């Protein structure tokens, strides 16, 4: 059996506030197979975002392990984890987190610049630009390449963020309430896009959401409560 692309093994996460240890994740076991879509449901404060950050190597677990492709990765150095984050996972957030000074195209291209030197990027700039443009066209923003985030609607911004997450061709996309900020029609458009891309590219998706209907469209639903997986 092939190993899962992303796996949490008995992950615990505590935050220390003043003298108190606040347990947020209390031993999570979760695996995501290649090409699988998983919805993560749970009440506010259940620890969904925290789990996503731990799985995406943004936040180290207090205990337990994170595996990419069967390799333990949570104990790597900061630099190695950053490089893995770049290659292995794409992030989509509720608040888009586009950089307001950059155009849509530049926001997407930035993903390519993260690991290349000036010289390397210069040599592959045409190819990088073509890839970014193609992605933006795929998310339906072919005519918005030079728009700044402030000149885009919420749904368009989220599409740019999705294109950005995909440029480095990750195996897993971690999305934290990607439609949480959008009205239902726009949200449906974004969700349709996500599933279309997922099918085309065979990506694994871990989707945090409060929307039961959206969750039903995923292969699998994982419910969390108070830092543990309940089903």
């Amino acid at each position, binding site marked *: 059996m092939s190993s899962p692309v992303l796996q949490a093994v008995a992950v615990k996460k505590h935050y220390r506030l003043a003298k108190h240890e606040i347990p947020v994740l209390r031993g999570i076991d979760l695996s995501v197979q290649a090409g699988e879509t998983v919805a993560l449901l749970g009440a506010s404060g259940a620890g969904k975002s925290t789990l996503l950050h731990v799985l995406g190597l*943004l*936040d180290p677990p207090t205990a337990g392990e994170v595996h990419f492709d069967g390799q333990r990765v949570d104990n790597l150095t*900061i630099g190695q984890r*950053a490089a893995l984050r770049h290659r292995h996972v794409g992030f989509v957030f509720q*608040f888009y987190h586009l950089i307001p000074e950059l155009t849509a195209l530049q926001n997407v291209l*930035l*993903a390519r610049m*993260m690991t290349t030197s*000036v010289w*390397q990027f210069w040599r592959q700039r045409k190819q990088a630009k073509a890839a970014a443009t193609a992605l933006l066209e795929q998310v339906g923003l072919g005519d918005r390449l030079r728009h700044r985030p402030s000149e885009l609607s919420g749904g368009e911004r989220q599409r740019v963020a999705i294109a950005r997450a995909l440029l480095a061709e990750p195996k897993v996309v971690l999305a934290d309430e990607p439609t949480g900020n959008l009205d239902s029609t726009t949200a449906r458009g974004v969700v349709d896009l996500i599933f279309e891309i997922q099918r085309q590219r065979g990506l694994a998706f871990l989707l945090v959401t409060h929307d039961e209907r959206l969750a039903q469209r995923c292969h699998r639903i994982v419910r969390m409560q108070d830092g543990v997986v309940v089903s």
Partner: protein
Amino acid sequence: MYRLFLAIRYLLTRPINLLGVAGITISVWALVVVVSLFSGFIDIIERHVHAASADIVVSDLPSWTSWPKLRSALADEGNVAGCSPRLLHYGLLLRPGHRPPPTPLPGRGALHGGDQPFLFVLGIDPIAEATVTGFADWVAHTDIPADLRGSTPTLATEDGVPTVLIGLDRMRREGLRRGDRVVLTTANQRSDANGNKSAEKVQIQLVVAGAFKTAHNGFDGNTVFVADATLRARLFPDAPDFVQEVAVRCHDETQLKATADRLQRAVVRAVEKNQAAYGSVETWREKNGMFLASVEHQRGLLQIVLIVIMVVAAFLMLATLSMMVTEKTSDIGILTAMGGTPSGVTMVFLACGLVITLVGVVVGTIGGILTGVYLEEVRQGVRWLTGIDLFPIDVYNLERVPCAIDPWWLVQVAGMAFVTGGLVSAIPALRAARHDPLVSLRGI
């Protein structure tokens, strides 16, 4: 790559950062221009001072000095091309009946070529002097009009009255003409039978023989030449072999210091008495050391002032960068998620500072070099526009405002700018580094 790219985008979208660029540009520009001007000025002054000096001067000779003995000691040194004996005295040169002495010109001390009423009176042998210094050129200088030119033979008596050569500018200022009578008032030391020393007033009647002009106004304004016999007859009548100073010319001008050291030992041997050392040997540079050092000192002071300005400019940059960091910490989270390390991401802000500094250094250096090269044109332009003369070149006998751009100084200026710029942008970058990337990712 992303750091540089983001830094540039951040800066371009915030015109306020031009303040920092302008600050660095202006301070780099000022450092390049002012220091190059001073360096050029120092080069020219040195050339002028050298042109008005002998290569090496032997002075402080004791009263028992015998010229024949000293001359053979000096001639033994291989690098010596020629020597000229001198008597050196001090005095007031006035027209008969003129009193009190003329005041120095306002605002022009002796250091800058202004005239003192108290003069150095050099008693020379004109023929020997011409072989050692530019004396022959000084009396034949093209600026001297025909009616002020000295008669030949130089410094010969006229109708039995000894003659004097006076600096051209001084002569013009005091309205002296050739053939005018002047009185040199000086003093001599006398010892009576009991060995008590007293000062005795000496007045020597002289005729103005003509003018001389060297490149160094400070020398011309404060020096007059008479024949050595003129001084000897009134001041040292019993010492036909005595000299007070010897001007020396060398074959190899690059070896002056070493030659002066060897001559110093030779002179001490030649005039030694009771085991005590007499006589001092100095190169032209050492003899004018105070004057040359004072100009260099001014350059040093200006450097310090301008470096302080650069620090102030850097603080301007700190202010704008700090504002930017406060706004942009929210980007740290997403950049980290995209594969940056948290500490690497904060380098974006350091890169901002370095980009500002780089632009400032490049623009400031190019502007400084251009201003330096066309400094004379700039001066004329400013004078034409405002009537203000920034640099009175005729005071220093110059045709253009001097300027010597030293590449090493340019490197130093750029280095200083980058060090201050780097230090100053490190402050907001460190503040950004303390920001938790997760905070901005969680929203709010």
